């Protein structure tokens, strides 16, 4: 077995195991990143967001420690770019999409693993939207380049021209102070009668650890959306092979990095072919779905429901398409930016978040105005 094959095997097995763990954790805690932002606007609830702050603060410290110990030679992580207006626009569309779909790119996976029809439809929408991006790639790519600022700098410390440790410690200390305050006030505690409940703060810590392991073993933080583009490209290629093969989007190979453990040079893109991104993201995707499915089965909660209102099915599909499109426009998704980018102070991730917030608000407005069924359309009501 040559070194490249060994590296692919390591990436695949590592990602599968991390995916299994993440899927189980997310299902047990119902750790829905989309719900955190949606509920902030719909219900003025911040309890779920607190666990996200905890996750980000812990990830900041773990990533920085790993970097200082030489475990992250590819730092800042590959596939993070200098900030541009595309980050905000992509984040905005992504925010709308994740609320309409009832879950983000990873929430869709763990909910689908537990038997959700709506999430399976959103999954299909993600593949469609990701492939559809190829049609606007030339225009959008040019827009991203035109609106890029601080070219050559990925993180805020790079923009400021300083080493990352001090800015990261300052941000982690500020976030840590909030976390400690909430902990003293008992605000991390969720009372729930649900079987096998995992407290969100525990889920946050476990996901921070999973993110660190991904950065060390794979060389990249958790990311999933290139796999959606590949799936979309594979399906489109069945019908329009020449169109896909000539597409600038599918020809691009944006990922180039040296694997931190084996020293093998790796490359990958959105093209419907096997490469490093396929070796990383498909096992992660399968792992999240399977981990959640096993968790749900063990609890006796795996069920496929029928009779879902048609407008919710349409909403899930449109939301998935929006997310797929947005995750290429941004580029990438909330998982990548919130759990991988913000902990290293990537400027593009803060811009993505700046777009995500109004997007989640707008998505909530659309959801309550057009998607929620009027009383007559609801399921059976038995007096």
């Amino acid at each position, binding site marked *: 077995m040559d070194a490249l094959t060994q590296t692919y095997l390591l990436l695949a097995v590592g990602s599968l195991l991390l995916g299994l763990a993440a899927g189980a954790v997310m299902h047990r805690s119902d750790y829905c990143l989309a719900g955190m932002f949606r509920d902030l606007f719909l219900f003025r*609830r911040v309890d779920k967001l607190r666990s996200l702050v905890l996750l980000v603060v812990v990830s900041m410290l773990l990533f920085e420690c790993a970097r200082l110990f030489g475990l992250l030679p590819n730092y800042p992580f590959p596939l993070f770019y200098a900030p541009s207006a595309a980050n905000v626009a992509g984040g905005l569309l992504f925010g709308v999409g994740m609320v309409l779909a*009832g879950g983000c790119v990873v929430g869709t996976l763990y909910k689908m693993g537990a038997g959700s029809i*709506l999430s399976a439809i959103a999954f299909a929408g993600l593949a469609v939207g990701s492939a559809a991006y190829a049609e606007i790639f030339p225009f959008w790519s040019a827009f991203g380049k035109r609106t890029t600022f601080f070219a050559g700098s990925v993180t805020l410390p790079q923009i400021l021209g300083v080493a990352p440790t001090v800015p990261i410690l300052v941000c982690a200390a500020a976030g840590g102070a909030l976390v400690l305050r909430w902990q003293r006030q008992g605000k991390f505690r969720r009372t729930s009668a649900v079987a096998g409940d995992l407290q969100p703060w525990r889920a946050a810590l476990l996901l921070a650890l999973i993110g660190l392991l991904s950065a060390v073993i794979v060389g990249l933080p958790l990311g999933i959306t290139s796999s959606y583009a590949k799936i979309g490209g594979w399906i489109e290629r069945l019908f329009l092979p020449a169109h896909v093969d000539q597409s600038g989007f599918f020809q691009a190979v944006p990922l180039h990095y040296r694997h931190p453990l084996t020293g093998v040079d790796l490359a990958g893109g959105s093209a419907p072919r096997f490469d490093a991104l396929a070796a990383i993201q498909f096992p992660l995707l399968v792992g999240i779905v399977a981990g959640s499915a096993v968790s749900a089965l063990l609890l006796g909660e795996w*069920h496929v429901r029928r009779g*879902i209102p048609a407008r919710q099915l349409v909403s899930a599909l449109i939301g998935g398409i929006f997310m797929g499109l947005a995750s290429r426009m941004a580029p990438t998704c909330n998982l990548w930016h919130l759990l991988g980018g913000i902990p290293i102070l990537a400027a593009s991730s803060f811009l993505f978040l700046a777009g995500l917030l109004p997007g989640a608000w707008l998505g909530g407005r659309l959801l309550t105005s057009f998607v929620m069924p009027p009383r007559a359309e*609801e399921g059976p009501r038995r007096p």
Partner: protein
Amino acid sequence: MNTIEFDIRGQICPSSLLTALREINIHQEALRDRVVRLRFLTDNRDCVATIPESARTMGYASEVRREQDCYAIEVFGD
């Protein structure tokens, strides 16, 4: 006491909580007079925490029961 049941299993998030909040508001008088109980069938794990909590902050009591393939959350006058 009359029990009104809402089957919101499998629906999009946060359909369960939005439906529960709306129905609690619609039936607030009957709930306070203890002539009605609202029963929500859901498979949304998050709502097993958020519906009882929302009911409590609105001044109502609740009970959660594990059914065969879902959770039944009953909201009633305290």
